[in-house]
């Protein structure tokens, strides 16, 4: 064994001292021969004989040297180095070919690596610096009769935690926001309400100060402390080293800054970078709906759990489901029909992982297609070259190169190409890793945070992809070389026929596959485009033109309820008095904005719920003139007026779906509805509209009078034909006149709001569109390459046809026919596959059949045009064939 390593070491060392060792060998052998000659001379031979005899008894000198070299170095490595050098030389000699091939591979591998990095950074390792993310699961509640996940209440969470043996820690993490002035601007900051164990449980430790201490999440508003992010520390506080112990007003309440988190930690919410954290005890300050820590019915918590090592999701699920069953029996009032559910991180339903998952899944499929198309292109290029190099290969075979050695050479060239392609592709991915966020508009001034992550797993996957590419690329010419027949090839055969099949089938097959894959992508892009248009054309049930929305954050400014009410009343009066303003109204929430509406259990006079059913509905608190401002038609009854204030009887407006569900054929006007223990009288029925998402199904929804359910937060809705910019200036003036310290949020139209809510569709469309275009381009290049080659190889046939009287138009038709036949084959194949696969777009499609004829038709049209363009140049070149020259060759 020792000798083996010793030998290996010496052999490796020899690789680096070749020149000297070679000289040594030469000298040693020369001295051997000279001694032999000398001896022979002394024996009495002639000079000539002495030399011949010496050489004879030595055996072949060159052969000896070769054997010696094989023994001295590592022949495998040496030939590989030789192949590499040779391969690089070949690539340099054909820069056009090399650039095209490398470009194709760069795009293919780069697109893959970029999407992998997004998948890694958004779905699998979404939270930088958080330890052991593979043990983390998302936790939500479930409700019988509701399709989506719900929040969890604080008391339920504590009970789950107490009874769990398989879960190491329950980590509460609820996103919220506040407004902070940075310099002289008001900026929206995202933060999280967390349990006291948060920083310890995720294993991220502050660089200054401390995290939260046990018990800081207990007690109503008992612990006004906050931990801030590195960016906030560096930005707003200019990296102040004495920051610990200083205070900051958050949503109107003075908080003490107790810690600063490390750079690169953005919290645990996919899509947004958190700027600050507060313990759950401060929940009331940041969450709508009042104090909820002792309310088992208030389900507001989003959480993660960390499994104990060795525990599986299924086991933990079984355990907490059992616990939820016990809670259901113990607290039927609040917990009937309520369960809990664990999700892998990448399926987390409450952040953007869930929104992006379908898009990313499709992106993976799409980039694999693009890679295949790119590989097919490069394969085709290599094939063309392998024909051009047939002679070289034949000669090498004839002078004794083994087939294995030739294959290795071709394979090495494939490796070089894909290694360069992979390197360049990773660069592309590196540049693109933050590109995804560009597709999402900033909302409310807060930029999204969607990082790509190029770690060892992405590198490994990209390497895997390039290995596959290499195998594909190396194999194509190898198949061809395997078939070289020495005698035949040396006799220089040649001259193909344009329409001829034969050995061209590989190339044609590759083109057909390329065309079919890009057709598939075109169909996908077409379908997405159409659903985006359908979404855009879907009426949200309120007017999006001529209505704009903005807000003033009174909570952060420390206004109490009375002051806030006065401020809003005064502002409303001033706004209504502005020229061009038709009407204006406050509401707690704007539909289709990021936040979610409050949901509450309800009871309805005369409605008997089934034992399993727990009637709930979402609602909004809106002011007078809200329906008029939004143009939401009232089917019957009236909307709220200034008279519906604190002193008046409680009133509500329900939507049509709610009316139909709870009052069936009765008229709800004048009937009673119980919300949070208070009875309200229904005074109006409004038409259904969209609340959370344009794509949602109609759902029960009601409105209550803002005056009777006042909270300080709220958006101002204004109906006016003026532009948002004009309005912003005028509004800013009015706000300043009332309180110079207040700043206005951005003023946007409701159309803008709707557009922002459809961003997942836009992202999917943009990405599929870009990659589909790329695929189309690659396929066109492939088709062009095949046709050009076919034309150049069949010059003799074309010349003959011309000599026999074929006109330019005949030749044009001949070549075009062949090109279009390939395209037709590809389209037919692509269409067949597309019919089966477009279903997978599933959730991203809206009101569009996966077999939508328009999408298929336009894909066909685009493909045909691209194919015509790709074939035209070779066909035109065919008509320029000089018959005399072609026949003479």
């Amino acid at each position, binding site marked *: 064994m020792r*000798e083996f390593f010793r030998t290996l070491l010496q052999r490796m060392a020899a690789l680096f001292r070749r020149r000297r060792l070679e000289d*040594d060998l030469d000298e*040693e052998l020369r*001295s*051997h021969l000279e001694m032999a000659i000398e*001896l022979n001379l002394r024996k009495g031979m002639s000079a000539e004989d002495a030399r011949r005899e010496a050489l004879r008894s*030595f055996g*072949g000198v060159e052969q000896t040297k070769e054997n*010696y070299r094989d*023994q001295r170095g590592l022949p495998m490595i040496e030939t590989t180095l030789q192949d590499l050098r040779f391969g690089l030389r070949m690539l340099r000699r054909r820069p056009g070919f090399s650039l095209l091939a490398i470009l194709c591979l760069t795009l293919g591998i780069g697109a893959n690596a970029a999407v992998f990095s997004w998948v890694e950074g958004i779905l699998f390792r979404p939270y930088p610096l958080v330890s052991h993310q593979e043990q983390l699961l998302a936790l939500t509640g479930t409700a019988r009769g509701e399709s989506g996940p719900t929040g969890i209440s604080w008391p339920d969470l504590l009970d789950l935690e107490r009874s769990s043996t398989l879960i190491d820690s329950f980590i509460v993490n609820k996103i919220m926001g506040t407004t902070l002035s940075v310099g002289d601007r008001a900026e929206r900051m995202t933060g999280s309400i967390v349990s006291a164990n948060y920083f310890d449980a995720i294993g991220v430790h502050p660089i200054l100060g401390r995290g939260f201490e046990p018990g800081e999440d207990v007690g109503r508003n008992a612990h006004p402390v906050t931990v801030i992010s590195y960016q906030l520390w560096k930005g707003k506080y200019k990296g102040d080293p004495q920051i610990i112990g200083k205070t900051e007003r958050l949503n109107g309440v003075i908080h003490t800054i107790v810690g600063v988190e490390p750079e690169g930690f953005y919290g645990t919410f996919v899509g947004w970078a958190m700027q600050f954290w507060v313990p759950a005890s401060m929940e009331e300050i940041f969450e709508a709906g009042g104090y909820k820590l002792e309310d088992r019915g208030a389900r507001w918590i989003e959480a993660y759990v960390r499994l104990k090592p060795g525990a599986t999701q299924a086991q933990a699920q079984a355990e907490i489901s059992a616990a939820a069953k016990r809670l259901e029996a113990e607290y039927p009032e609040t917990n009937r029909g309520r369960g809990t559910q664990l999700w892998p991180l990448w399926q987390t339903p409450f952040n953007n992982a869930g929104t992006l998952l379908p898009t990313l899944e499709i992106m993976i499929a799409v980039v694999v297609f693009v890679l295949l198309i790119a590989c097919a292109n490069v394969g085709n290029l290599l094939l063309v070259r392998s024909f051009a190099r047939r002679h070289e290969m034949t000669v090498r075979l004839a002078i004794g190169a083994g087939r294995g050695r030739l294959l290795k050479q071709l394979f090495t060239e494939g490796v070089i190409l894909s290694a360069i392609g992979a390197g360049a592709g990773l660069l592309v991915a590196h540049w693109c890793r933050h590109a995804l966020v560009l597709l999402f508009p900033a909302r409310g001034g807060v930029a999204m945070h969607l990082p790509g992550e190029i770690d060892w797993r992405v590198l490994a996957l990209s390497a895997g992809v390039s290995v596959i590419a290499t195998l594909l690329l190396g194999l194509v010419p190898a198949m061809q070389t395997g078939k070289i027949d020495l005698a035949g090839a040396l006799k220089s055969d040649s001259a193909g026929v344009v329409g001829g099949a034969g050995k061209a089938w590989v190339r044609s097959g590759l083109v057909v596959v390329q065309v079919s894959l890009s057709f598939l992508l075109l169909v996908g892009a077409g379908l997405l485009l159409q659903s985006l248009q359908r979404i855009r054309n879907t009426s949200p049930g309120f007017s999006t033109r001529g209505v704009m929305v903005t807000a003033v954050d009174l909570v952060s400014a420390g206004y109490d309820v009375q002051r806030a009410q006065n401020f809003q009343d005064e502002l409303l009066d001033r706004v209504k008095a502005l020229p061009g303003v038709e009407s204006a109204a406050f509401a707690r929430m704007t539909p289709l904005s990021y936040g979610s509406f409050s949901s509450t259990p309800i009871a309805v006079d005369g409605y008997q719920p089934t034992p399993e059913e727990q009637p709930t509905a979402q609602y909004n608190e809106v002011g007078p003139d809200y329906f008029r401002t939004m143009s939401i038609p009232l089917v019957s009854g009236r909307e709220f007026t200034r008279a519906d204030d604190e002193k008046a009887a409680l009133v509500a407006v329900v939507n049509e779906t709610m009316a139909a569900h709870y009052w069936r054929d009765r008229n709800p006007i004048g009937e009673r509805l119980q919300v949070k223990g208070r009875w309200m009288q229904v005074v109006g029925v409004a038409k259904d509209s969209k609340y959370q998402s344009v794509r949602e199904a109609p759902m029960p929804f009601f409105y209550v009078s803002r005056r009777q359910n006042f909270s300080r937060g709220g958006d101002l809705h204004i109906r006016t034909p003026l532009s948002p910019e004009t309005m912003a200036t005028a509004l800013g003036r009015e706000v300043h006149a009332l309180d110079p310290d207040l700043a206005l949020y951005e003023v946007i139209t409701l159309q803008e709001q709707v557009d922002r809510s459809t961003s997942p569709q836009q992202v999917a469309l943009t990405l599929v569109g870009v990659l589909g275009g790329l695929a189309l381009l690659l396929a066109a290049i492939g088709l062009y390459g095949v046709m050009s080659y076919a034309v150049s190889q069949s010059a003799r046939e074309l010349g003959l046809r011309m000599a026999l009287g074929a006109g330019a138009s005949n030749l044009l038709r001949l070549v075009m026919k062949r090109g279009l036949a390939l395209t037709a084959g590809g389209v037919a194949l692509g269409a067949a596959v597309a019919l089966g696969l477009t279903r997978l777009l599933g959730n991203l499609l809206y009101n569009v059949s996966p077999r939508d004829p328009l999408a298929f038709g336009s894909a066909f049209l685009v493909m045909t045009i691209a194919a015509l363009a790709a074939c035209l140049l070779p066909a035109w070149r065919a008509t320029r064939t000089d018959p005399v020259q072609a026949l003479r060759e």
Partner: protein
Amino acid sequence: MPNSKSEVLQGTLDLLVLKTLDSMGPMHGFGMAMRIQQASLDLLQLNQGTLYPALLRLEQRGWIASKWGVSENNRRAKYYSLTRAGRKQLEEEAESWGRMSAMINRVLRAS
């Protein structure tokens, strides 16, 4: 290379080289070739060239060492000498060779 008179097996050549160096002291390649031919009474005809890869192999394993020196005729030549590991190897191989040939002899005589 196969030889008409008798084929030199790789292992055999190694043993011969080690033995030669053991009994003759440091030698150059040509000297070794002459010596092996002589000692085998010319029965063993080896292509002298095959000696060199074998020498390299033995050196890589650390059984022999080489050094440039000057021959009796004032010619620069590479001299090989047995190392301690090589001597041990020679003993082992000579012994196993002896056992092997004794066994083969016995088999041949028996039949």
